[in-house]
């Protein structure tokens, strides 16, 4: 379509509303050297094409809806919204309007180079608020007014030149009925969205009639079609016919000469109005084109095809045809254009120029390629050729030479007046036959192109969705991190508690830890979060070569909403060597995996090389997540003590049961009967080794302060202390229920451990009388168990002291002399321990036993007098 390349020339810019001009109201008229433009506002501008400048601007009292020029007296008729029709002579000299200097109202417009002539609101030719459109036919004015249930066509006589600008009375009137009421039952009629279209059709007749000027909205029709459409009377009378295209889609006609009615007898619509067709969508344009060019009949250049365009692209053409018998019959055809059609104009040779919201197009109805859109078939689609000019709201054909240029005058949405010059070579418009062959291929290409684009679109849409989701997740993660890291006082909104229990899944007893993750915050732990539990075994002194072994369990937290809990149970030991290495350190943390969340969103970008993608692999940090510590617990022997003696006979609570005995031992034991002594290393040790004892004395005042409310609940201090020590043990409930102050338990390795707590008063130490203390006594036949239990107790007391140090005002008065004595004796004992240890390394087998015995003894001496914490 290279030949259709338009040359656009901008002439002038007019003020337009913010959203751009709407179609329907703006008008351009170019009857001669002057162009009349109304851009939907109150103004009508006269633009001189020759001088390329604005010649005059008329300012009317209301927005202008319609412009018409009557050629004979040379008058400009203007319809103002809700006011009526004004008439003025566009020749500035003969104007009788008052002239403003135009300075006050045009500041926003810049300096208009011409005078602004404001039209007196009282100078209305035909005041009628209901008028929607009009046309001028010779010296008659035909108006179309909106009534509550009908349209009213009225015919007036125009003022003669020289007369006072006043109508000489109504000549005729007829009502057009419509299917649906125009206005609601209440209130004033609202401004119609679509204005009706009115135009005047005259029969092409003797040349004398041709010179008779019509209004700017009229056209001629070939006589056969004219007679066929409007009847033999109209044809005989050579009467102009008014065609009305209504917003409800009706296309009807009124023979103008029959419309003349006396005042007493308004027209009978049935006799006067003929409905030609119903477009079923608002009619936006009525015109006529010449579709058949007869070589021998070059004289007859009158259009032979009536064209009506609907807003949504419906095209109706009516031609006169001859049926098989030679009788004239109307040929009605319907086509469809890609709509919506904003405005249109008919050119020569079957060309219809029309503007959609996207482009100015031309379609040639005279072409061979136009499909036959017979009525009854679904309307066939026309393929207009785009002209590359967009957003034209009104259009007028300036000049057209059959084989040469076409000049269109157009007003764009932005209020710019322009001329488009089109080069129309004869073969260009419409698809040629050769082009038709390639059209199939082209359509295929286009379709596949559309397919590709839509695929790409859907993948991009998916990517955007994923990113949005990832961003939401990240935002939540941020929030979670903030509340966890804020370090506020009080319980944390997301917490993890640890409990331990013994279970016996197989033959071996296993200590399990249960982590309970509780989300009491308002946030949601979604995809990407995981709970990490790290179990660190302390390197025991006996195998120093084994590095402390850490095991990390990672459990994904799948959707932990506000208020939800999640429990995770892990085995703590004993390990493969069958030994439970205590104490264990269990630390819990929340881990947020960036890779899981962000990585998904990155996925589509990796398949395509889109520059839109801002994710790069290097953006993800090395450390691909966030770790938020929740808690850390040290699991010592006090957690794992079992108390078979406390278990009621019928309960099978695993926490209270004794350790699993070797089945062989049990069997042998049962054989030996009740009289036999218990066997096994523990019982043997208990029998032959005197139990080791360690005591710790703690100032009662300190304990009371530390235990706080636990003590105040009426529990004796010794019981409370024992409960405190066994706080993490599964037997705590029994201990608390029975108010025990002494328990006999079994250590993980099977050795029995005896914990006794009692209140004692120390008389010798207090400076101001006896010092109230609580004595915690740990007694076990196995030194290892004793040590670990002792260590555990001391560890707890240590932590307590550190916590309480700030709160307790100060130590009570002690006898320093006594303390010093104890200290010096301990120092000598420690020195002895050192030497004994040195000897242990060097001595031979024989003396080793004696040294060990001695060492034990010294250790016992070291523990007595016991540790005192005040």
């Amino acid at each position: 379509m290279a030949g259709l390349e338009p040359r656009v020339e901008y002439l002038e810019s007019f003020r337009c509303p913010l959203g751009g001009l709407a179609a329907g109201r703006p008008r351009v008229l170019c009857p001669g050297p002057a162009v009349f433009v109304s851009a939907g506002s109150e103004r009508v501008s006269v633009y001189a094409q020759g001088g390329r400048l604005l010649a005059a601007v008329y300012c009317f009292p209301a927005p202008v809806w319609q412009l018409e020029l009557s050629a004979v007296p040379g008058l400009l008729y203007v319809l103002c919204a809700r006011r009526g029709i004004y008439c003025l002579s566009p020749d500035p000299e003969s104007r009788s309007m008052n002239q403003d200097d135009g300075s006050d109202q045009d500041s926003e417009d810049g300096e208009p180079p011409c005078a602004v002539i404001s039209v007196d609101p009282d100078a209305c030719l035909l005041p009628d608020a209901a008028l929607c459109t009009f046309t001028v036919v010779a010296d008659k004015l035909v108006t179309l007014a909106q009534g509550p249930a009908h349209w009213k066509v009225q015919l007036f006589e125009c003022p003669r030149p020289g007369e006072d600008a006043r109508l000489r009375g109504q000549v005729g009137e007829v009502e057009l009925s419509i299917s649906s009421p125009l206005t609601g039952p209440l209130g004033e009629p609202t401004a119609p969205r679509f204005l009706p279209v009115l135009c005047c059709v005259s029969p092409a007749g003797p040349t004398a009639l041709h010179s008779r000027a019509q209004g700017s909205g009229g056209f001629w029709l070939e006589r056969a079609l004219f007679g066929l459409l409007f009847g033999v009377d109209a044809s005989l009378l050579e009467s102009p016919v008014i065609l009305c295209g209504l917003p409800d889609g009706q296309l009807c006609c009124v023979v103008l000469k029959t419309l003349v009615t006396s005042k007493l007898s308004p027209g009978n619509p049935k006799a006067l109005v003929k409905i030609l067709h119903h477009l079923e969508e608002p009619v936006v344009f009525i015109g006529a084109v010449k579709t058949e060019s007869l070589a021998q009949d070059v004289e007859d250049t009158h259009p032979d095809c009536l064209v009506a365009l609907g807003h949504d692209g419906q095209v109706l053409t009516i031609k006169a045809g001859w049926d098989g018998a030679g009788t004239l019959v109307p040929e009605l055809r319907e086509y469809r254009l890609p709509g919506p059609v904003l405005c249109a104009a008919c050119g020569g040779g079957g060309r219809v120029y029309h503007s959609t919201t996207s482009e100015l197009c031309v379609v040639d109805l005279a072409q061979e390629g136009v499909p036959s859109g017979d009525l009854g078939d679904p309307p066939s689609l026309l393929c207009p050729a785009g002209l590359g000019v967009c957003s034209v709201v009104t259009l007028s054909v300036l000049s057209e030479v059959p084989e040469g240029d076409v000049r269109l005058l157009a007003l764009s949405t932005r209020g710019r007046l322009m001329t488009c010059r089109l080069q129309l070579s004869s073969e260009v418009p419409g698809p040629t036959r050769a082009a038709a062959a390639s059209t199939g291929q082209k359509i295929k290409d286009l379709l596949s192109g559309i397919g590709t684009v839509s695929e790409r679109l859907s993948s991009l849409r998916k990517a955007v969705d994923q990113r949005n989701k990832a961003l939401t997740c990240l935002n939540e993660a941020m929030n979670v991190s903030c509340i966890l890291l804020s370090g506020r006082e009080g319980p944390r909104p997301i917490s993890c508690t640890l409990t331990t229990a013994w279970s016996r899944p197989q033959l071996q007893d296993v200590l399990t830890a249960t982590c309970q993750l509780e989300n009491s915050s308002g946030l949601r732990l979604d995809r990407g979060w995981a709970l990490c539990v790290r179990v660190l075994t302390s390197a025991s002194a006996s195998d120093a070569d084994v590095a402390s072994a850490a095991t990390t369990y990672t459990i994904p937290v799948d959707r932990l909403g506000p208020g939800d809990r999640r429990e995770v149970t892990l085995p703590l030991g004993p390990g493969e060597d069958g030994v439970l290495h205590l104490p264990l350190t269990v630390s819990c943390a929340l881990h947020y995996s960036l890779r899981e969340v962000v990585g998904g969103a990155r996925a589509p970008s990796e398949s395509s090389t889109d520059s839109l993608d801002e994710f790069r692999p290097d953006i993800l940090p090395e450390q691909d997540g966030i770790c938020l510590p929740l808690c850390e617990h040290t699991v010592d022997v006090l957690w794992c003590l079992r108390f078979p003696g406390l278990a009621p006979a019928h309960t099978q609570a695993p926490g209270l049961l004794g350790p699993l005995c070797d089945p062989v031992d049990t069997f042998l034991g049962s054989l030996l009967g009740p009289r036999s002594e218990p066997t096994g290393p523990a019982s043997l040790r208990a029998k032959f080794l005197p139990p080791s004892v360690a005591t710790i004395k703690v100032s009662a005042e300190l304990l009371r302060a530390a235990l706080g409310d636990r003590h105040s609940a009426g529990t004796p201090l010794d019981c409370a202390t024992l409960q405190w020590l066994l706080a993490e043990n599964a037997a705590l409930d029994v201990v608390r229920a029975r108010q025990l102050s002494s328990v006999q338990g079994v250590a993980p390795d099977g050795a029995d451990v005896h914990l006794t707590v009692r209140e004692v008063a120390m008389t010798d130490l207090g400076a101001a009388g006896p010092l109230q203390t609580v004595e915690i006594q740990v007694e076990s036949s196995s030194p290892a168990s004793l040590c670990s239990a002792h260590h555990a107790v001391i560890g707890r007391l240590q932590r307590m002291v550190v916590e309480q140090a700030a709160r307790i005002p100060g130590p009570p008065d002690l006898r320093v002399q006594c303390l010093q004595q104890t200290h010096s004796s301990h120092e000598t004992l420690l020195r002895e321990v050192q030497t004994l240890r040195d000897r242990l390394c060097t001595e031979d087998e024989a003396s080793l036993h004696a040294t060990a015995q001695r060492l034990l003894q010294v250790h016992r001496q070291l523990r007595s007098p016991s540790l005192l914490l005040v």
Partner: protein
Amino acid sequence: MSHQNPLGTSVPHTSCLDLWREKNDQLVRQAKVAQDSGLSLRRQQLAQDSLEGFRGLLHSLRGLPAAVPVLPLELTVTCNFITLRASLAQGFTEDQAQDIQQGLERVLETQKKLGPRLECGLRGLWDSVLHYSTLLLEVLPALHHLAGLQAAVWLSTDCLGDLTFLLQTLNGNQSEASENLLLLLKTWSPPAEESDAPLTLQDARGLRDILLTASAYRQGLQELITGSLPRALSSLQEAASGLCSRPVLVQVYTALGTCLRKMGNPQRALLYLAAALKGGSTCGPPLLEASRLYRQLGNTAAELESLELLVEALNVTHSFEAPQLLIEVELLLPRPHPASPLHCGTPSQAKYLLASRCLQVGRAEDAAEHYLDLLALVLDGSESKFFPPPSPPGPCMPEVFLEAAAALIQAGRAQDALTVCEELLSRTSSLLPKMPQLREDARKGTKESPHCPSWVSATYLLQGQAWVQLGAPKEAISEFSRCLELLFRTTPKDEEQGPASNREKGCISDVVLQQLRAAALISRGLQWVAVDQDTKALQDFLLSVQMCPGNQDASFHLLQTLRRMDRRHEATALWWRLKAQTELPQENAAWSLPLYLETYLDWIHSPDREALLEEFQTSLPEPHEL
């Protein structure tokens, strides 16, 4: 103004009610100024401003809860608004009914009785409002005013049942038995407005009088159309005695004339028509009625004179009188219908009536002139004034052309008749079937023939006759042959599709087609006779007798030809048949032929039938001799 005076203790306190009242009075005065203003534009503007003023005032009044002290003013403003709106729009619409309904609802609002009554419609509203209004004496005058407007709305929309009910209720159901609308209107007496009441554009009593006249006229017209003449007469006389404007009076008098004419009182009818003609500028209907009267009386001269006057009267453009800004009788009358006796049509329709009457009564020269005038009027495009064609309800334009041509031939202006025919053919040539194709079809013997309008063949027929008159039998014969060629292709069409569309397309009834064929055959036969081709003439006459056995002209022409050719046996047989036919009572033709065809058939009427029959009888041998 006092309300601009802050804390004006010295100034008498003016309430809002007084301000609104003042505003109402000012708007009424403004509307009256508009009424008296001569300039139509200024008048329109002023009236429109008043209307907007009333609308705004009503808006303010309805902004407050309804209260009895304000109601009289509010209802008065409503009435003024409705009156002005209806008179500006020149008619009542749904809007007025809604305005009334809102007014009534406001009344009920003061009585806290609004709600369940709503679904009863306006009738139910009025019922309840008038029920409570006995308690609200101060509201009564305004309510009666509003009721008058409601009556006007219902009268103009023909809701006579509702109207009767309303009037019965207004009259306090005293005359419940009476269904007579006029009687009810007469008994209704709206309470007089007090002197200090707010101004109104039109008071209730004036409205009552208008309603009385309008309903009497409507009723009379209706009775006239349905044919109950004595009742129509009394209703119309009631209307004539009432208060109405001159144009309405002219209509009433004309209707009275029609009524009396139909009742067989032509002299009294003439008196009323004369009164109507004296009455005013709109003298079209009485003149038309006069022409009908004279036609009935057989006074052709007077009839044609009245028609001429009618044409002249209709040509005078009467000045457009601005309607009053009041409810007038005109607003309450039904829209004139072409079937109404008062419809007088347009100048060209009157002209056609005159021309065709002239042709019918035999004034050929006058008829020809009038037809030519009519054609000139209708066809002259350069004239700034449009004259619509007489159709409908008259004939379609081609028939007017044909009648004109017939009149011209009748008047001895054959050349002019040819011109008219040629004009008709040239102007419609593009609509005719393609003639070459037509000939081709004839040669091939194609069964399907193109549809050709009947007036085309009729034009050829008249052209032939014109040539006859010009003494050119050859041309005449060729025209008649063309005519016959077309006529024998035409098949009669049913008239069921609607006469208008058939006429438009030139469809033709069986009878008309037969008569056309017979006429063409006889005319051609006569021309053959004129050129001494008796055999061909005999063929045509024979054919025409076959075509149209009822047409005695064909038989007479055949008889003459047979006698001239000395074919005595056939002639005698035909004579016996003719004699039997003429002795039978002549059946009246139930069908009507187009005027041009009737005229034409007169031309080929054998002039001296009786003489021929007598003469033949004497020369005839006795039947037993056969």
